[in-house]
C-alpha cells in the first residue's frame, strides 16, 4: 500500500467518492458556523467598527489562494518526475479554484480598504503580489485551455508552474523592496505576542479550516470530472478510429 496507488484513476475515483460526502458536509458546517459566528456573534472592533468582520472571508480566501498555487506546484513536480496523470489533472482542477479565491481576497480587500485606508486600491506589496498571483493563475489556465493534446498541455503547464513559482517568490521580494506598504502584519502567528484578539481568532480558525476542507472537496470533485472528461475523450477518439 503506497500513496502512488491513487495515481490509478479508478482507485482515485472510488476512494475520493467515499471521502467526499464527509468532506462536503464538514466543510459546509464549518464554513456556515465560522461565518455566522464571525459575522453576527463577534464584537465590533473599537477602531475598525464592523468592517473588521470581512476578515472571516478575506484571510481564509487569501490562505487558500496561496496554498492552491503551492498544491499545483507539488502536483506539477509529481507529474514531471513520476508522470501520474491524476496529479496533472489535480493541478488543472485546482487552478480555477485558486483564481476565484484570489479574486475573493482582492475584492474583499478592496471593500475593506475603501472605508479603512480611504482607497479601493493601493500599490502595496501584498496587494500587488496578489495581483501578480492572479495573472499567474490566468496565464496557467489559458495555457491549459489553448493546447489540444492533454499530455502536451500537462507538460507545458507544469513547467510553467515550476518557473512561475520561482518568479512569484521573486516578485514577492521585488515588490517588498519597491514599496513598503500599508498592509498590516500577519494577523495570526504562533511566535508573536500581538495576535488578533481571541474573540476574532476563534471563528477565524473555524473559517480557515472550513475553507481548507471546501478546497479539498472541490479539488477532489473537479479532478474526478477531469478524469471522466479524459476518459470520454479517449473513448471518442477510439470510436473515430474505428469508424
Amino acid at each position, binding site marked *: 500500500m503506497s500513496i502512488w496507488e491513487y495515481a490509478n484513476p479508478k482507485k482515485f475515483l472510488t476512494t475520493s467518492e467515499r471521502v467526499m460526502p464527509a468532506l462536503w458536509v464538514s466543510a459546509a458546517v464549518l464554513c456556515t458556523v465560522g461565518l455566522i459566528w464571525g459575522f453576527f456573534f463577534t464584537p465590533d472592533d473599537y477602531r475598525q467598527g464592523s468592517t473588521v468582520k470581512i476578515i472571516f472571508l478575506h484571510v481564509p480566501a487569501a490562505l487558500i489562494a496561496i496554498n492552491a498555487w503551492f498544491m499545483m506546484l507539488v502536483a506539477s513536480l509529481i507529474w514531471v518526475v513520476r508522470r501520474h496523470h491524476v496529479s496533472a489533472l489535480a493541478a488543472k482542477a485546482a487552478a480555477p479554484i485558486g483564481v476565484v479565491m484570489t479574486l475573493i481576497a482582492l475584492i474583499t480587500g478592496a471593500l475593506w480598504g475603501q472605508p479603512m485606508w480611504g482607497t479601493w486600491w493601493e500599490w502595496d506589496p501584498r496587494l500587488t503580489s496578489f495581483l501578480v498571483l492572479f495573472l499567474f493563475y490566468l496565464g496557467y489556465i489559458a495555457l491549459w485551455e489553448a493546447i489540444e493534446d492533454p499530455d502536451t498541455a500537462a507538460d507545458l503547464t507544469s513547467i510553467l508552474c515550476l518557473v512561475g513559482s520561482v518568479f512569484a517568490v521573486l*516578485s514577492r521580494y521585488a515588490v517588498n*523592496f519597491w514599496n513598503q506598504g500599508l498592509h498590516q502584519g500577519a494577523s495570526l502567528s504562533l511566535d508573536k505576542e500581538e495576535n488578533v484578539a481571541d474573540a476574532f481568532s476563534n471563528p477565524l480558525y473555524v473559517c480557515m479550516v472550513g475553507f481548507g476542507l471546501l478546497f479539498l472537496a472541490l479539488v477532489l470533485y473537479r479532478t474526478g470530472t477531469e478524469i471522466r472528461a479524459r476518459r470520454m475523450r479517449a473513448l471518442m477518439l477510439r470510436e473515430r478510429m474505428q469508424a
Partner: protein
Amino acid sequence: MRALLLRDLRLALRAGGGFGLGLAFFLIVTVLVPFSVGPQSELLGRIAPGVLWLGALLACLLSLDRLLALDWEDGTLDLMATAPLPLEAVVTIKALAHWITTSLPLVLAAPVLGVLLNLPTAGFLWLVVSLLLGTPALSVIGTFGAALTVGLKRGGLLMSLLVLPLYVPTLIFGAEAARRGAAGMAVETPLLMLAGISAATLALLPFASAAVLRVNLR
C-alpha cells in the same frame, strides 16, 4: 554555434526578422507619453526612467512573437533539435540573437529618447547601465514564453499573458535603478539585484525553454 548566431542575426537584419520594428515601437511609445500626460517638463522628467523602461520592455515583448515561430513554421526548428548542438545551447543563442537585434538598439536609443522626456542629466548613465543589465533577462524570459507557445496558432496574445508576470521583478529593479540614478540616490542595491536576475535566468531558464521546446516538438 557561431554559425547559428550569425544566421539569426542575418535573418533579423534582412527583411522579415522585424529588426527596427521594436525600435520604432519604442520611439512611438516615448513620443506618445507627453501627449497623454501633458507637456509639463518637470513631471515628464520625473516619470522618464519608468516610461523608458516600460517602453523598452514592451518593444522587447513585441518582437518575441517571431523569435521561434518562423523557424517552427518552415521546419528549421526540427533540424536544430536533431543537430549535434544541444537544444539548451540553441535556445541560448536564439535569446542572444534576440538581445543583440532588439534590446541592444533599445539600450542605445534610450538616452536619445531620454532627451525627449527631459530625463535629468544624472539619470542617463544609470538608465543605460540598468537597461544593459536588465534586458538580457527580458530576452531569456521571452524565449521561454516563445518556446511555450510556439506550437499554437495565434499564440502571441497568450504569450504576452504568460510573459508579463514573469517580467515583473526585472521591471521593478530596472526602473528602480534608473529612477534612483535620475534622482541622484544610491543605485547599488537594485543594480545588483538586476544583475542577479539576469545571471540567474541566463543560467537556469534555457533548460526550461529547451524542455518546453522538446515537448512541443514531440
